[in-house]
């Protein structure tokens, strides 16, 4: 680990009211919510955990006062722009397994500290024609190899890396939104107001790999969690999916995994007739879909999790 990252962590621990690390929990860092008090935790009694404070005291706090914070490696500006050497990230989404459980959406929001109404990853209900059956369609950024968004950016704020990822440097973005009009998949979202992320995120060093802290008046989008890949871990949407619908991997190694099964990318695509969405647009996406054949659940099941007002959106499609 580099020196600057050590410093960064030390600062972080100093700033947190009760910042602690649990060695047994490895990569995860927990911190107490600033407003959380011990009295409150004692009153609730249940679900408490013992944590070690920086000055060596063992205290018991309520679990609800702990907040999950991703530990990321500190990388240089150049590294965040060039990408992981030798990699070619690819994603495969199995439409037969998606039931709109929306775990990917919430995991993504948690990972990137997004408010509940901001979705970098969305799940759409698709119905290709009048007589065809509807199916759920998770949509990430496609990290196109011929990205229309990157072409039009006037200031090099969005760029294509050698590992295939298309990222946004939100310290460079001027907010002209030209990339949003150019993307045919409506992937990009804009910070119309403050993103409303936790206060300690504001002090995080800006980095195109994490898009933290979010900046008002700039564009952002699904980034395939390259900070996780750098540590050899899967994006949160892949891990969160209860049905294993997302496969993530490296096209150079020809391997993709959904966390429980690891398969050859080319074989998976060949066997299941994988395709890319909007192939005719010439954008060359890095996300492949497996057609929704032999679905494990009926599409209607996906409505169960949704609030009433969202359910109305899909009335016409069933």
């Amino acid at each position, binding site marked *: 680990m580099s020196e600057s990252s050590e410093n960064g962590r030390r600062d972080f621990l100093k700033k947190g009211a009760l910042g602690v690390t649990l060695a047994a929990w490895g990569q995860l860092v927990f911190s107490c919510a600033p407003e959380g008090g011990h009295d409150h935790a004692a009153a609730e009694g249940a679900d408490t955990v013992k944590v070690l404070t920086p000055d060596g005291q063992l205290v018991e706090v309520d679990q609800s006062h702990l907040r999950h914070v991703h530990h990321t490696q500190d990388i240089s500006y150049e590294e965040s722009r060039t990408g992981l050497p030798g990699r070619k990230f690819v994603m495969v989404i199995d439409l037969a397994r998606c039931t709109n459980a929306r775990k990917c959406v919430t995991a993504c929001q948690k990972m990137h500290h997004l408010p509940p*109404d901001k979705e970098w990853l*969305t799940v*759409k*209900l*698709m119905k290709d024609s009048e007589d065809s059956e509807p199916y759920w369609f998770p*949509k990430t950024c496609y990290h196109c190899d011929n990205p*229309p968004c990157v*072409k*039009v*950016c*006037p*200031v*090099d*704020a969005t760029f294509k890396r050698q590992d295939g990822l298309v990222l946004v440097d939100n310290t*460079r*973005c*001027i*907010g*002209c*939104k*030209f990339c*949003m*009009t*150019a993307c*045919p*998949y*409506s992937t*990009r*979202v*804009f*910070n*119309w*107001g*403050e993103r409303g992320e936790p206060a300690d995120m504001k002090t995080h060093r800006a980095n195109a790999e994490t898009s933290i802290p979010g*900046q*008002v*008046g*700039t*564009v952002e989008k699904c980034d395939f969690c390259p900070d996780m890949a750098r540590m050899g871990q899967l994006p949160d949407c892949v891990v969160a999916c209860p049905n294993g619908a997302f496969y993530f991997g490296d096209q150079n190694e020809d391997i993709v995994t959904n966390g429980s099964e690891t398969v050859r990318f080319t074989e998976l695509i060949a066997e299941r007739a994988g395709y890319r969405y*909007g192939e005719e*647009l010439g*954008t060359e996406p890095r996300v492949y879909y497996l057609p929704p054949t032999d679905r494990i659940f009926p599409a209607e099941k996906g409505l169960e999790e949704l*609030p009433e*007002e*969202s359910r*109305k*959106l*899909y009335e016409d499609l069933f």
Partner: protein
Amino acid sequence: MKTVDLNKKQTAILQTFGPQLEKSGTMYRLWVGFLLLMILFGGYGLFRQIYIGHVVTGMRDHAVWGYYIANFVYFIGVSYGTAMLAAILYYFKVPWGRPIIRIAALVAFISGVIGPVFILLCIGRFDRLHYLFIHARVQSPITWDVMVISTYLVGITVFTYLLLIKDFAILRDTDKFEFPSWRKKLYNALALRYTGTSEQDQQIGHSTKSMAFIMVPKVVLAFAVLSWIFGMTLRPGWRSSIFGPSYVIASIATGIALIIGVMWVYRKLYKLEDYLKDEHFRYMSLILIALVGAFGYFTLSEYITSWYTSMTWESKVTDKLLSFKEFGWAFHLANFFGIILPIVVIAFRRFRTPTIITALSLLVVFAMWVRRYLTVVPPLETPLLPIQDARPEYVHYSATWVEWSLVLAGAATFFIFFTLVPKLINVVPISDYEKETN
């Protein structure tokens, strides 16, 4: 020092403009105050937008552009169109064009200033505007636009100024009016020591003619680049080869309609019937209907092909424009009042009076704005994948008071400019009449 001599005709013109150059009435002051209030209100809207964020506008993740970009495209188009008209009239020495050139150049100048302000309003980070220069990427159509618009603005400013120098000298030298000393100093500075020697005349003549010559290809390039901002995106309704030509024609037509409006007001206010004659309105109206006719043909050509071939994504946009449940009313009314009605009415010789022509021009001015709006917003509201958002503001764009305040402030800036210009200089050139009578 030698001064510019005037002949009888020129003295007569100068005296026509005397009243408004010298003093201002109560109504005038009220009108200027009203316009300033509108601009101030826009300033307050802008303050809110910068302070709180773009969340105060009606723009959201699908319709990421709205009134601001429509207004930008509208004003800058008008500027290009009128600049082209002024340049052509000057370069080819069109005999009837003389009193119109100055008004056309002034419309071009102020629209060219207002237009780019609106693209800035649409940018999320004002504080990073200089990135457009220090981190410029030449692949981006926005970079092309930055280059073209900035050089165009220099061009139109120089061209307009060259057209004014001789008259600044006349106002500097005249003893007919009682100007306060600051005005005298101003004219003295603006006249650039022009004293009417044949060498100076030749220099100004050469420079103006060269600028006029440069402006025509410059404007064509500017039009092309601006239309490519839309044309270079994977979006039906934008990515069309006729987008550029259609935009050129519509913008020149709008510019001519605006010039007719300004001419009518000036003629009425300052009694300029001897200079802005009925025939000027007639000639301008004939150019106007030729252009709106061409625009009608381009419109038909664009939408009939996408309607007939009916590719899914493309027809979604076309259907929205034609359907009365979506943008149908706006689209059909704009086409009726902006294209069909002016052609039908002006086709009859007896309807070609200045007032009727001006009324029709105003319709064209509004209708073309609606058409600009309809080029920007419906394609944005029609993405390839269904929107499926429970928040109505993310599905349909609807401008907020902040956007309205700034659009109105833009219009007020246009009006205040044309209200203040006659205070500074005669709107019909005096210097041009020298050769005729000498």
